[in-house]
């Protein structure tokens, strides 16, 4: 039976893992290869590196990090952050990563998803979707968004029943797009994405748990796997995302970085509650 995946996400800046809240007060948290090795030992199923600078000159440093990591740990590695061209993808894959995650560029140029999937295969094209709940009355007008992708009201039991829009945001959650998260998810699947990472902008950084409503709605709407992201504060949140939320995998950063819980502890918590997970075995 397919195991549910636990994926630690590492923010990488200038070739180092960094920790910080909302990209402020960044603290050095070690060498990416060393951190990756530690996570492998704890039972991580995949790794995500998020290039949080993604400036041109830093790209080379990131490629070196990817090269060194893929020589040391042997598991799927995804790199995200500032990926805009087929060339960006080609150089990253060549350096040794297995998947790339595309965020803003997927919204500004949806054809990029199709081209990338055709050229490199759907299995390595991950699309990030960052929805934010917006009250219907507060929504701006987005005349350029196609009707079949436009935000639509969703019932919201969590918010007291007032319908809300699930508006896909870009640029780190700063810019609304007028795209409905569920409709956009179906669209990126149609264009050839092999996986979706869904990060709720409302839940991200709260440690109060993933946005289960949106996660469930998106997971039910598409056939491709959905990775829940944003909001994990403890193993119970990963449990909810992988059961109630219908996610195939759960991504988390701070709970693993700060050593609040190890991946191994989290997996035992899940296994005790009947979630299929993988444990490292001795060979």
């Amino acid at each position: 039976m397919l195991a549910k995946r636990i994926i630690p996400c590492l923010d990488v800046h200038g070739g180092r893992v960094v920790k910080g809240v909302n990209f402020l007060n960044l603290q050095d948290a070690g060498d990416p290869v060393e951190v990756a090795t530690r996570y492998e030992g704890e039972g991580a199923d995949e790794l995500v590196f998020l290039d949080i600078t993604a400036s041109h000159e830093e790209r080379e440093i990131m490629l070196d990090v990817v090269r060194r990591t893929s020589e040391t740990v042997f598991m799927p590695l995804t790199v995200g952050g500032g990926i805009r061209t087929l060339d960006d993808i080609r150089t990253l894959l060549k350096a040794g990563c297995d998947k790339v995650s595309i965020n803003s560029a997927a919204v500004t140029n949806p054809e990029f998803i199709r081209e990338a999937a055709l050229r490199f295969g759907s299995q390595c094209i991950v699309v990030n979707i960052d929805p934010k709940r917006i009250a219907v009355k507060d929504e701006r007008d987005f005349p350029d968004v196609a009707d079949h992708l436009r935000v639509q009201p969703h019932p919201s039991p969590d918010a007291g029943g007032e319908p809300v829009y699930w508006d896909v945001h870009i640029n780190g959650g700063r810019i609304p797009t007028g795209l409905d998260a569920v409709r956009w998810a179906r669209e990126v699947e149609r264009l050839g994405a092999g996986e979706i990472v869904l990060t709720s902008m409302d839940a991200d950084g709260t440690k109060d748990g993933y946005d289960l409503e949106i996660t469930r709605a998106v997971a039910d709407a598409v056939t491709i796997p959905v990775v829940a992201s944003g909001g994990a504060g403890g193993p119970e949140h990963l449990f909810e995302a992988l059961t109630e939320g219908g996610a195939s995998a759960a991504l988390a950063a701070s709970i693993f970085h700060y050593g609040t819980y190890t991946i191994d502890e989290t997996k035992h918590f899940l296994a005790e509650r009947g979630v299929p997970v993988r444990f490292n075995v001795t060979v």
Partner: protein
Amino acid sequence: MIKIVDYGMGNLRSVQKAFEKLGVEAGICSRPEQIERADKLVLPGVGAFRDAIAHLKQQELAQPVLQHIEADRPFLGICLGLQLLFDVSEEDGNWEGLGVTPGKVVRFEDRPGLKIPHMGWNSLERVGPHPLLEGIPDDAHFYFVHSYFVVPTDDSVVAARTEHGERFVSVISRGNLFATQFHPEKSQRVGLKLLQNFAEL
């Protein structure tokens, strides 16, 4: 020496790096005469079946690969490198494969709640003891990413099956011919152990 066939489909370096980690020399080859000199051959690959078979033929690699297999020299197919061994694939039409193993390549059937691609870690139901899986515990998981799987005509080539909505064939073996649907090079220690077993054949 182990040779990894480079036919322009995906991440060969990761297979090579895995062998390097084991201290095993493995070269990448993209020309027919290089394959002819290989003791052991690895055919990796991700992407579309149609493109893969076209590339193999364009680079005139199909023939030497077939000769290597016919001579029963050790061969390891990985993912697409497993599927290419079959007669025909139903991926985006009907595409003829290398025809080394009778059978076809089909897509997972859509079922409510079933995620396709089959992406992540899954376990094997072994048919019996197998040299490639020696020293690897029965409950070990391997990393898969695929939407199509092989259906051999002849059950005797089946070495292991895996469950995802239905049971499908995840390892085949016949003499010195081996192929896995999962990626040993992405399967951490258990994957490296499998590659080591292949290197030590």
